[in-house]
């Protein structure tokens, strides 16, 4: 489905958890945005990249049992909405953790992992997942 080019385009944000920051009001965005949703045109030309700590907290989560083909070998896996300490909320997997210990409010940290594999093309894609803090 023509995923290849878009995957490479976003790879730096996904590999290094790089967000965007509005130079006008200071709001941090992840996933990155090219215009600030608060400042609109005042933010044009004032958006810069910013590194995120990868520290966050679980807002909600689920254990996914019915999975798409690219995730067949990971079934079942945990997905979560994670609020980063810089403010943005993102959607990511929780890995390397006891699923019974996943709870709303638990602190998590980002790790770099294999995300998915496309069985047809053999393409393996990497990016951020999260682990429960000890």
């Amino acid at each position, binding site marked *: 489905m023509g995923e290849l080019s878009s995957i490479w385009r976003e790879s730096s944000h996904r590999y290094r958890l790089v967000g965007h920051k509005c130079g006008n009001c200071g709001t941090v965005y992840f996933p990155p945005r090219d215009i600030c949703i608060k400042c609109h045109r005042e933010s044009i030309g004032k958006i810069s990249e910013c590194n995120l700590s990868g520290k966050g907290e679980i807002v909600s989560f689920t254990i*996914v*049992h019915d999975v798409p083909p690219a*995730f067949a070998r990971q079934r079942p896996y945990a*997905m979560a909405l994670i609020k980063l300490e810089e403010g943005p909320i993102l959607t990511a997997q929780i890995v390397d953790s006891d699923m019974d210990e996943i709870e*709303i409010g638990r602190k998590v940290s980002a790790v770099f992992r294999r995300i*998915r594999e496309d069985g047809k093309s053999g393409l393996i894609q990497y990016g951020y997942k999260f682990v429960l803090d000890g």
Partner: protein
Amino acid sequence: MRSSRRKSFLVRTLTDVYIVGSGETKYGELWEKSLRELAVEAGLKAVEDAGIYSKDIQILYGSSSLAGSINGQNDIGSLIADFSGLASSNIPALRIEASSASGAAAVREAYLAVRSGEYDVAMVGGVEKMTDIYGSETLDLIGTTLDREWEWFMGATPAAMAAMTARKYMKDFKVEKESLAMVSVNDHENASKNPNAHFRNRLTLEGAMGATMIADPLNMMDCSPMSDGASAIVLASDRYVKAHKLDGVKIVSSGISQDYLALHSRESFYRLNSTAIAGRTALSKAGIKASDVSFLELHDSYSIYALIELEDLGFAEKGQANQLVGDDIKLNGSIPVNPSGGLKAKGNPMGATGIGQFVEAYLQFMGKADGRQVKSPKYGMLHNMAGTGSTSLVHIVGGA
């Protein structure tokens, strides 16, 4: 003289719009029927039901969410027009796409086309053929209703997103899982009286609670199925209805709104802003209150959404829709929900689903809903939604 002329020029001449006919295939796994056969079957039934001829149709809107991906077929508008015998009429025929809200979005475009006075008769047909590929591949494609790069890429599915909403909602408002299951039990009860429904079996609360897990806490009985099916309606202007002495059900108002594409960008994970705004718009344009509504068709692609929609559409305070799912939402309750059987049990052929809600409303107001007839309905409210709430449409019908 001059001023009065000017004044008359400024008067908006909007016409009332009526549903004058409906047609529908059975929803379900229809191995023996192709995409085009389904679309044409529904379309021809609607034309026949309206008592008009195909050549009377002046504009056509087709709706499909996944035909380009699953069946490799785009330009559904032309497909429906052509194989309904309309190609030689050379009428405008377009496909409208808004993921799982495509159906109501197509109806809205047709409604506006007739309401503006530009056209007198419009046909809207929606179709989806979802069982032509393996279920896991279809799951991949219904992921197109999400943010492809920042949700789906990471392993999220539509059920997973609904599940995360459900978990937070249940925790914050201390709502039990049984309240979600009762939405599906009600859908199945109503669908048992709908011959076109995908599932016509009754569902017990125990059965709903004990089904195979899909995305914890949502199990298979919280999730709408992948259905094949097609629905169609014919719309006509007030003057056309009167000139041809047709029976019709009025589309009183139409509301549409949009929200962030990805759930993680929204300020709340259990407040559907697009639904709330579309609902308020539709009610205010109709000049009525939520309490004037006699029945609801809700986009319950996942059971949790029915609870949240009841709240955001003004039928319950936030976190309190569980008080309605016992008796109030039943056919004979204070606010019947999904007399058709809803997305869970009537089925969810995505591009047809929103149009199917209009088919149900038409049957209800014409007194043709048989065993699932709502008693003397005054207004019906129809709610169709894209993905996790990125686009919502709310229509008010009836009001005769």
